[in-house]
Structures are given as C-alpha cells and as structure tokens.
C-alpha cells in the first residue's frame, strides 16, 4: 500500500512540476512578447541574430532538405511500384516536403544548432553575472537578449523552409530524372499539378511557430541556468530536448488546424 502511495506521490510531483514549468515558460514568453513592441529596439542585434540563425544555418538545412527529397523519391518509387503508382512520386515528394519534412527537419536541425547555442550563451552569461551586469547598466536583459533572438528566429525559419522546400523538391527531381528515368517536364508538371497554396503556407506557418519555440526554449533554459558549467550543460540539453518535443507536438496541432476535415 505504501509503495503504491509513494508511486502516486511521485507521479503527482512530476505532474505538478510539469505544470509549474509550463506556466513559467508561458509567463516568460508573455513578458518577452510584451517587450517586442516597446522601445528601445536593438536593430543591430536583430540583424546579427538573423545572420546567426538564418544565414549560418543554411548549409545544414540545405543538405538535410536535398537528401530528404532524394530519399523520399527513391522510397516512394520502390513502394508505389508495388501497385503501379510510380507516377505519383513527384506529387508525394512535393507535398511531403512542403507540408511536413521541410518545416519539421529544418526546425529540428535549427533546434540542435541554434537552440543549444542560445541556451549555452545565455547560460554562461547568467552564471558569470553578465545578465546582472546588463541590469546594472540600465539595460533590460529580456529586451536586449531574448527579444532579438525570438524575433529573428520567428522571421528566418520560414525563409529557411522556403529554401528547404526548393532544395527538397530539387533532390527528388534529381533522383527522379537521373536514376528513375522520369521525363523532366512530366516530373515538373506532376510536381505543380496538385500543389496548393495552402500546402506551402501551412509549412511556413509551422516554420514561424517552430522558430519561436526554438528561440523561446533556448532563451528560457539559458536565462534560468544555475550552478556553473554543469548548469549550463543541463540548460543546453533541456533547450534542445524541450524544443524538439514541442516542435513535434505543435506540428500535429498546426496540421490539425490546417487540414483536418
């Protein structure tokens, strides 16, 4: 009986901890958003973050997208050949890339690269008193550190996903034409034939939400980092793991909002 009570107590503590953490993240996000529209603004920092998050993430997102498109074409072809539906390969590639793989893979890649970097940077600033130093220099740390990262990630993730969409489709095209011997014109026609604006827009909306989530979790974990190098390491891990889980969760929610019948 006692063992059962202990188990229930442990589950209860975990549930309460989860709710408290979710509330704390929500308050942090609300405070940060309230500063987005209030001066002072830091355009120089915003531009730097857009470069860091967007431009420097291009190679990893591009490689991920092009190989995903290639493997998708190959897998679809070998699978669909079983029921003579090889002609649907181009359509499957473009819909999968624009609706799902583009935003999700770009989001997970950027979460690993940028979420970790943001958490490590802010965590180090926290444990070395640099965030306190900002306050003593009449600078709001949320406005100076968090807002530029949140805004930059929300803006550049959709831009990265546009690139990922194009390169993903290109990857499928290369395999389709060079290896599976599709006619290039027919492949392109099949690519555009069933693609709708909503497919691309849903992917871009997902990307914006994922960008916000990545920066939010990186900033939140780094900002609340405690306990020296070990604390910074834990913040970095938590930032990537929590952002990845939230990306997959919100991916379903947004898909449901756009496409549920």
């Amino acid at each position, binding site marked *: 009986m006692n063992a059962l009570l202990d188990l229930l107590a442990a589950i209860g503590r975990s549930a309460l901890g989860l709710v408290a953490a979710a509330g704390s993240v929500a308050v942090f996000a609300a405070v940060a958003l309230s500063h987005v529209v209030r001066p002072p603004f830091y355009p120089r920092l915003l531009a730097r973050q857009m470069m860091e998050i967007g431009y420097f993430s291009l190679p990893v997102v591009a490689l991920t997208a092009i190989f995903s498109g290639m493997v998708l074409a190959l897998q679809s072809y070998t699978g669909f050949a079983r029921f003579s539906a090889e002609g649907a390969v181009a359509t499957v590639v473009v819909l999968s890339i624009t609706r799902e793989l583009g935003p999700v893979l770009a989001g997970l890649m950027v979460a690993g690269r940028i979420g970790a970097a943001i958490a490590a940077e802010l965590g180090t600033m926290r444990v070395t008193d640099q965030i*306190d*130093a900002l306050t003593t*220099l009449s600078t709001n740390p949320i406005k100076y550190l968090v807002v530029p990262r949140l805004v930059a990630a929300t803006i550049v993730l959709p831009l990265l996903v546009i690139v990922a969409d194009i390169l993903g489709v290109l990857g499928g095209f290369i395999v389709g034409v060079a290896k599976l011997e599709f006619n290039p014109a027919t492949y392109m026609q099949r690519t555009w034939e069933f693609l709708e604006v909503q497919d691309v827009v849903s992917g871009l909306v997902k990307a914006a939400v994922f960008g916000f989530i990545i920066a939010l979790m990186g900033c939140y974990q780094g900002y609340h980092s405690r306990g020296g190098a070990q604390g910074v390491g834990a913040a970095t891990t938590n930032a990537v793991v929590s952002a990845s889980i939230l990306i997959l969760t919100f991916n379903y929610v947004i898909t449901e909002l756009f496409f549920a019948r």
Partner: protein
Amino acid sequence: MTEAPPKIRIRGLSKAFGAKIVLDSLDLDVPGGRGFVVIGGSGSGKSVLLKCILGLIEPDAGTIEIDGRNVLSMNRSQREAVNGRIGMLFQQGALFDSLPVWENVAFGLLARKMMRRAEAKPRAIEILAQVGLGPDVADLYPSELSGGMQKRVALARAIAARPDLIFFDEPTTGLDPIMGAIIDALIVEQVERLGATAFSITHDMASAQRIGNEIAMIHKGKIIWQGPAERIYDSGNPYVDQFVRGMSEGPITMEVRG
C-alpha cells in the same frame, strides 16, 4: 549644524531562501562621498545585501533608500534611472565576452543614449587610459586579457557614466597581492576623482582598509559592528576581532557540512 543624510539608508531588510534566513531585519546607514566597506565571512549575507541594493534580488521585507528615495517601491523605468547614476564592479568582472573592450566600457553610455557609437569609442579609450590601459586594448575581446586587465576594464565600465555611487563586489578576488593593491589604488583614485560614494563588500582585510573610510561587519544577516576603518583592529567586538585576525577560535562558528 544638521548631519548630512546618508547616501543609502536600509531599514528592516529581510531575505530568506526557503528556511534559510540570509538577511535578518538588517539596518544600515551608508554616508555619502566616502569609501564604505561591508566585511563578513562566506554565507554571512553580504552578497545578497549588495544584490538587494542593486535590485537584482527582491527582498522579503524592509526599505532601501538611495538619496532619500525608496528604490524598492519604484517602477522599472524609475529604477533604471537610478541605475543610471550607479556603477558596479562585479567580482569576476562580468565583461560581455561577445563585445570588444571599448564596447564593454561604453556600454552604459550607449544604452542610455548619452552618445553615439562614433563618439563612444574615443571616450572609451579615454576612460581606459584613466585605469592604465592603452588604446591597443580597445579592440581586443575580454578573453584576450589577463585577470588584472579584465578587472581594470570592468572598473573602467563601472566609472564610464560618471556615477555618484559605485559598488564593488570583492574587487581583489582572483588577483595576486600586488595587482590587488594596484586595483585598490585605482578604485580610490577614481572614486575621489568622481567625488562618488563607494560601497564595497569583501573579506580581504588588506583591501578593506585600503578602500574603506568606514567599515561595517555583517554576521548572520545583521550588521553587528560599524565604525571608522582605523578602528577595525581595535573594535572591542569579539566577532570583529576574530574575523579581522582570522582566528579559528571565537564566537563565530563556521558551518561545515560533510
């Protein structure tokens, strides 16, 4: 003749973290225009006291007046205006490692829009000269500097906006005795030049005597003695005597957990 009001007046300041009481209804008056030092052992509450005054930690109870105004009841913009007249030298420097030295020094000037970037760099180089650093340092990053140089840059940042109240958190920690004495001399020189009030916390008695005109001792979250620096070795207080002489025997017992 009426006595000048204190620069900082603290009454009934209390702060606890869970069951641990760190500041216990602490009262303190810090006179203006002088060097004031709070000494105390590890865990005595001096760092929390400093963070409460700076607005980095919210106390549970009490008042903190700077120039007669309770800073705890101020809104954010009022508090930022007060911080605009305050300088702070952190224990480890807390320099922004993503910015070059000159931007670190000019950070407060740029943040408060006291000058544009083009004007700020020559001004930062002037301030660096005041703490004994040449213009060649301006474009380096903090990680490229020695500990002593980082402390000088941190001091330059603390005095850049000509504050009238400057806080020093263990200014000689991590420095060798000679560099510690040099930093202390720079602190005294710059504080006198600005006519500012210097509020320091330290457990380095040599440093405390060099930079303090008046010393207070904090123990278990309360001020247990306050007096002129020259009386610190003749205070008549057994707690102060034990601390300043570094004796293991006495009324202060250190909590050691295995």
